[in-house]
C-alpha cells in the first residue's frame, strides 16, 4: 500500500512533496489523534488559502470556488472539533501535518507574487493537485489507519466533499486556461 500512496502522490507535484511522508512507510503508525490533526490541518490550510484567493482572484468562478472552500472546510472542521471533544481526543501534531503545513507555506509564497488571470490559473492548479492528493490520502492512508468508528465515519462523510471540490476545480481549470 505504501508504494501505491507514493505513486499516487508523486504525480501531484508540490503536494507530493508535502504528503510524501506517509509514503516512506510510516502510514500504519498514525494514531487516531494524529489522523484528527492531519484532517484539521488539511481543512485549515485550504480555507486559509481560499481567503487569499478571495482577495486576489479575478474570475467570478474562482471567487465562488474560494467561497465554497471557506464554507466547506470550515464546516468540516467544526464537525471534526465537535467529534474530537466528544471522544475526548486531543489532535496530536505529526510529520504528515507538518509536511502539509510546509507545502501550504510554499504554495502561498508562490501565489502572493501573482495577480489577475495568472493568480487564477496557479491557484486552481494548486487546488486540483491538493484535492487529488488529499483524496488519495483519505482513501489510502487516513481511512485505513483510523481505528475509531466515528472518526472513520467522519472521514467517509468528508470524502465526497473533497471529490466534489476536485471535480469543480478541474472544470474551472478548463475555463481559466483559455
Amino acid at each position, binding site marked *: 500500500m505504501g508504494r501505491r500512496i507514493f505513486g499516487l502522490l508523486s504525480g501531484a507535484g508540490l503536494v507530493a512533496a508535502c504528503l510524501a511522508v506517509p509514503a516512506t512507510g510510516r502510514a500504519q503508525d498514525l494514531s487516531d489523534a494524529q489522523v484528527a490533526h492531519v484532517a484539521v490541518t488539511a481543512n485549515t490550510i485550504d480555507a486559509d488559502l481560499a481567503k487569499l484567493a478571495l482577495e486576489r482572484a479575478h474570475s467570478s468562478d474562482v471567487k*465562488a470556488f474560494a*467561497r*465554497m472552500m471557506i*464554507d*466547506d472546510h470550515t*464546516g*468540516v472542521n*467544526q*464537525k471534526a472539533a465537535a467529534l474530537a471533544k466528544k471522544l475526548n481526543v486531543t489532535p496530536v501534531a505529526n510529520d504528515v501535518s507538518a509536511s502539509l503545513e510546509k507545502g501550504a507555506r510554499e504554495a502561498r509564497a508562490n501565489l502572493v507574487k501573482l495577480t489577475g488571470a495568472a493568480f487564477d490559473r496557479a491557484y486552481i492548479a494548486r487546488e486540483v493537485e491538493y484535492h487529488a492528493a488529499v483524496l488519495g490520502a483519505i482513501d489510502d492512508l487516513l481511512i485505513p489507519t483510523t481505528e475509531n468508528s466515528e472518526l472513520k465515519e467522519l472521514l467517509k*462523510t*468528508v*470524502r*465526497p*466533499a473533497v*471529490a*466534489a471540490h476536485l*471535480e*469543480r476545480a478541474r*472544470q474551472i481549470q478548463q475555463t481559466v486556461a483559455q
Partner: protein
Amino acid sequence: MAAVAAAATSACAADVQPVRTHVVEIRQFAFLPETVSVSPGDTIRWVNRDPVPHTATASNGSWDSGRLEAESEWVMVVGGAAAGDYVCAYHPNMKATVQAGR
C-alpha cells in the same frame, strides 16, 4: 367495523388527491432521492445532513432555498412552476429534478 370505516375514509381521501410531503435528504454531496414526483399542493422538505452548507436552487431561477446550514431544512409548497431541474448553488455538480405528476 373500525377497519371498514378506515377503508372508506381512505378511499374518500384518495378521490380528492391528498397532498403529500416529500423528503429529500442532502447527504454526501447528493440529493436523495435524485427525482421527486409531485403534484401542486404537495410539500417538499430538504434536509441537509452534510457538515457543509448547501442550497436547493431551481435551474430556471423560479425558486431557491437560500443557504441551508448543516442539519437545517427548508420546506417548499409545490406551486404550478416548481417542476424542473435544480442544483446546489454552491456545488453546481449536485443536480436533481422535481418532476410533475405522480
